[in-house]
């Protein structure tokens, strides 16, 4: 049976709904030994500030039950080096490339967008307004609807490419934030970023992360991510990209069923570096078994 896994986000057509999540896939090329780029939907590259950035001091990682807390703090090479050294190589890959945009201020987000706008080979921008481990108390724009709306609006005005707003789960009302992003002009929404978390070493009584707080990802958070994806997908009219703890095609399909048009796979890449490709493959097997001809037949079909 020929199965059509392609999805159309409106602003971007994907070969299949499986993207690699930002920060868990390096700049993409790190995974060349493990996957065929033409077998996945696309990659979201690591968060980029305008300049190079040191990130947080180590330790930056703690493993928890079913989860990983990270406080990388968005270490990265900056747009310039990225555009010169990485982007040309990414352009040669037959896969969608989305760049995750960071900023320490509204202006910096815009600067990054303006710089990248002059480069070829980027399909969309994912506005990372939701990283919990940059500011000490976990603050980020996506905690507030007004800040979110205003920033999305500026970003949209600044650049020529589609804007995906990446939301934070650390909020009381995710729908309110999603609507603010939509009203601000976002072309799509991706969620969730990591949950603000902490771990303590009982021997030394020190936080296990130098940054004290970090962001929790991995299968532990999947039930929360799925709930939020469902809430948002039923509330907005722009496409939603779901993520959080996806390890298998069944996990990914749960997100599609609650209304996500595509998914991102994050932490799983560390354990099984071929996760994205494997999940896309398993998705096809699932469709075959269930007699589903087009993956889009699954999207938003939850039976309540």
């Amino acid at each position, binding site marked *: 049976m020929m199965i059509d896994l392609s999805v159309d986000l409106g602003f971007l057509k994907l070969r299949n709904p499986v993207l690699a999540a930002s920060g*868990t896939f390096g700049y993409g090329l790190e995974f060349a030994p493990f996957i065929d780029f033409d077998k996945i939907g696309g990659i979201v590259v690591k968060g980029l500030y305008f300049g190079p950035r040191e990130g947080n001091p180590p330790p930056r990682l703690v493993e928890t039950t079913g989860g990983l807390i990270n406080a990388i703090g968005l270490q990265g090479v900056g747009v310039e080096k990225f555009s010169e050294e990485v982007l040309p190589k990414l352009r040669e890959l037959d896969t969608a490339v989305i760049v995750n945009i960071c900023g320490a201020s509204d202006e910096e987000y815009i600067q990054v967008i303006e710089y990248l706008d002059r480069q070829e080979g980027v399909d969309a921008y994912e506005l990372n307004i939701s990283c919990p481990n940059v500011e000490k108390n976990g603050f980020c724009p996506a905690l507030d609807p007004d800040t979110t709306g205003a920033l999305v609006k500026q970003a949209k005005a600044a650049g020529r490419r589609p804007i995906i707003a990446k939301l934070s789960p650390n909020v009381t009302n995710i729908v309110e934030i999603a609507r603010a992003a939509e009203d601000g002009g976002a072309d799509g929404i991706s969620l969730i970023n990591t949950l603000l978390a902490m771990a303590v070493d009982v021997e030394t009584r020190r936080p296990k992360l130098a940054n004290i707080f970090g962001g929790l990802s991995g299968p532990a958070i999947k039930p929360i991510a799925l709930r939020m994806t469902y809430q948002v997908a039923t509330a907005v009219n722009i496409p939603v990209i779901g993520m959080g703890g996806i390890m298998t095609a069944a996990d990914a399909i749960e997100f599609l069923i609650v209304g996500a048009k595509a998914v991102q796979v994050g932490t799983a890449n*560390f354990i099984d570096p071929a996760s994205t490709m494997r999940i896309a493959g398993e998705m096809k097997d699932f469709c075959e078994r269930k007699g589903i001809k087009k993956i889009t037949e699954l999207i938003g079909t939850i039976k309540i």
Partner: protein
Amino acid sequence: MQWDSRAKIIFKQNWNDYHLFRIETPKIAVEARPGQFLMVRVSDTPYPLLRRPISIHSRERNALEIFFQVAGQGTALLSRKKEGETLDIIGPLGKEFIPDWEHLGIAYLIGGGRGIAPLYFLGKELKKLGAKVHVLYGGKTLADLPVKEKFKKAGLGMTCSTDDGSFGFHGFVTDLLENEIQKTTPQILFICGPNSMMKKAAELAAAHKIPARISLESMMGCGFGACWGCVKRIKKSDNGKWRKICEDGPVFWAEEIIWEEAE
């Protein structure tokens, strides 16, 4: 770098908390260099979530050996694997121990506890390259020196030390090193063990102006450069920025390491 999801455990040995596995993995074995490591999946359930980094202890034709000490749940689960079972491993990863020198001369290998793991492969390769190899192997007590005979069998000179004097020199392996440096002049040191021991050894190396290669540990998310989780601040390289232990290390020159930040 290769990925072998069906590397078979063909031999197993253990001494209390210490375990040695021989694993059939031709593609990884052929690429392996001393000082490099593997990322090992210790369970086929989501617990624990991440792979564990383990050094390459030896290469035996198309197999690799690992030697590890149970440190927590992950290594405990690993230790329970049986002969005939398969492991999912990625490797070889990281930079190797041996510098690109014409002539190596007298090489001292200093290993503490589980830190001995990479030194066996290293010792054998150094010997092949014509170096005169002497290994200093330290532990808390005799039981922490399970693989000592192996080195002798491979024709590698070895002196042991125990903190409690139950075997060999009574004292720290770094004291032993200090004694040795009085007697001979090593051209190079290779050091792997607890941070406190490595730091002391690095100080000795610096004091006596002996180049020293040190293998650092770090919490690793991926092991292949994708997560930026394993960084430490390394002097010289790239103006003192955080460097990835998995990719730029785990082996560094002693003088590159900022010990206050190596924890």
